[in-house]
């Protein structure tokens, strides 16, 4: 059974439920304090939260922690690296993914459910989705407005859409270019996404659509 590290930075706050979702998806998960080592893991998840309270810029301070060097090694080895919400912000700040996450177009924290269109099923995290499928997950962020000056470097994986999969301005909750909700690196083994799949991994919480992100990741890590 592949084993994943769920990295806990000071201020991370979605670590427990993210570890639960990985277990539910058939993987092993261990919460790892950011001062510890990532040896012996088959993949890494950087969960959501407010590492360092979002001081300076969301994700900026965690991205400079030593453990990120190990994350980079893992990514280079082709192991899956998933950043959710604050984890996505950390991955861009650490240059593991290109672009930046800026304050929402309405500069407030926004917590609500959204529809996403799956744009790329070839990544380590989307194997269990169908291309063009529309899924539901919650977002909860103040800085999720994705920006890049070089789209050629990103694989768009999830886009905010309406119920029918149309990508339009009304469906864009934060001002991201091209309604981007999640991107991956060229190899497809590093994914950053603003929506919270771990909050959509239990039928009582409104949807199980997110669980397949973790299932895909577990399956990928077995290879």
């Amino acid at each position, binding site marked *: 059974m592949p084993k994943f590290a769920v990295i806990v930075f000071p201020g991370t*706050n979605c670590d427990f439920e993210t570890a639960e979702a990985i277990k539910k998806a058939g993987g092993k998960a261990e919460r790892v304090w950011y001062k510890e080592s990532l040896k012996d893991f088959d993949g890494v998840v950087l969960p959501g939260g407010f590492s360092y309270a979002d001081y300076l810029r969301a994700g900026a301070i965690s991205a400079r922690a030593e453990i990120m060097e190990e994350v980079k090694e893992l990514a280079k080895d082709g192991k899956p690296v998933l950043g959710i919400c604050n984890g996505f912000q950390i991955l861009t700040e650490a240059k593991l993914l290109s672009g930046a996450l800026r304050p929402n177009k309405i500069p407030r*924290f926004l917590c609500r459910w959204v529809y996403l269109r799956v744009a790329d099923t070839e990544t380590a995290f989307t194997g269990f989705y169908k291309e063009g499928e529309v899924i539901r997950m919650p977002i909860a962020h103040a800085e999720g407005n994705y920006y890049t000056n070089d789209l050629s470097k990103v694989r768009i994986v999830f886009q905010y859409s309406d119920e029918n999969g149309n990508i339009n301005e009304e469906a864009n909750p934060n001002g991201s270019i091209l309604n981007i909700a999640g991107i991956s690196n060229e190899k497809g083994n590093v994914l950053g996404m603003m929506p919270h799949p771990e*909050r959509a991994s239990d039928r009582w919480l409104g949807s199980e659509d997110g669980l397949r992100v973790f299932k895909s990741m577990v399956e990928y890590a077995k290879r």
Partner: protein
Amino acid sequence: MFPHKEKFVREKLGREPNELEWAMIEVMWSEHASYKSSRKWLKLLPTKNEHVILGPGEDAGVVKFDENTAIVVGIESHNHPSAVEPYGGAATGVGGIVRDILCMGARPIALLDPIRFGPLEKERNRYLFEYVVKGIADYGNRIGVPTVGGETEFDESLDGYTLVNVACIGIMHPNELVHSYVTESGLLLVLVGNKTGRDGIYGVTFASEELSKNAEEEDRSAVQIPDPFTEKLLIEATLEAVKTGKVKALKDLGGGGLTCASSEMAGKKGFGAVIYADKVLQREPNMTAMEVMISESQERMLFAIKKEDLEDMSKIFEKYELEWTVVGEIIDKPRYLVYWGKEKVADLPIDLLTEVPIIEWEAKPYSVERDVQTPEISPQDAFLKVLSSPNILSKEWVYRQYDHEVQGRTVLKPGLDAAVLKINDEYGLAFVSDGNPSYSYLNPYHGAMACVVEAVRNLTSVGAKPLSLVDNLNFASPERPEVYWSFIETVKGLRDAANTFGLAYVSGNVSFYNEVGNKPIKPTPVVAALGKVKLEHITTMDFKDEGELIAIVGV
């Protein structure tokens, strides 16, 4: 404010207290810390039934959910500080109640925020509204505790003021309960978290007085800058420490600061304490013993632990990059001693701090159902007027700013009759708050009952069976006979309504002196209620299908 305080103190002590001693007495005798005007009446409330593990008296109440699960619950107000600095006041209000839950040994899992303002037509009220919500959002979101519900109400009588109440629940195994008092001497007192500064000096006495006209300019010391980053680390470090079983007592530092936390921790079962005030880590230069002892700097916790466990505990604090120092020791004599270096700067019998005499103010009834004019208005216009009132409008603008899903438990989200949190695979916990100052103003007894009844109705609307209650009593000056009377009536109403349902209050809070410019607020009791619901049985308010019958049940 206590008529014979000075005489009482001098007689008990047999001498004149020094400046530091007076300051500590002042703080502990404040309304906010001592409940001197309310204690007698709060005794009327039912506090025991089969669900209650721990009733009022410590930092929060504890309710039995099932054999392996206890729910800790509490409610607090942060009205005065929020009225002068809405962002910091509201945020530190969240921080305070979260630490109250934490110090019982429980993980905080949800917040509710009943908040009240003056009419939105006025700039100052809009400012207060916007920044109170932002303060709650920024703090709750950053510490990872979801705000799953609340109330938002606007009322003429609150013009220029705000009532910010926050309720919090936590979850733990019943065996993990940590008390806020010690039962042995020789324990070390360890202060963990933020450094101590000059903030909040005399905060509790501030909360026990009416706001002055120039409050905004004057009361810098009464507000604090919120530090959710440190709070989150405190939560994780405290829970890790509690899991070791080595924490003998735990208290958060709130109103009254170190004096209050340490004297209550030591005094409750007849012990005493020595405090080495100079050992407290100080944020500002040249602080005095008095400033250190009564500062209300936020995000600090006081641990009582055995000497031999200090090393293990300190490793946990250091893992979370929290600063800590040993600031005192529990002694077996019931005295409260403070040292500054080698010098003994205070020496009091501890009960002079912890056992404050009660006060009973004059109570004068006003005629209930005050003569309000029933407006002449057509049913059509009345209907539109009601529907367009900000009190009825959707509160989505508020709760979208709150992370109401973090921790992955929120089954019923804000916007419905009550929130439901998933506790295990079978059962959920319903959580709701209600207050209705307009009813309470007309008839405080029935208004209070209505709060309880509405909360219970909201629980039943989502399919939950009520478990227990907490109450937050927001009132004007108790020195006003009509206000004091309405307070007593309110408590009686709360009592009678709870008894009808067989429910008990496990915790609560009283906030007096809510007035601006010599104008009292309406009596504003707020009740938060917990219920248990089988996940399969949760009901929601939307119509599910065409052709369904609609029925109204009741009188």
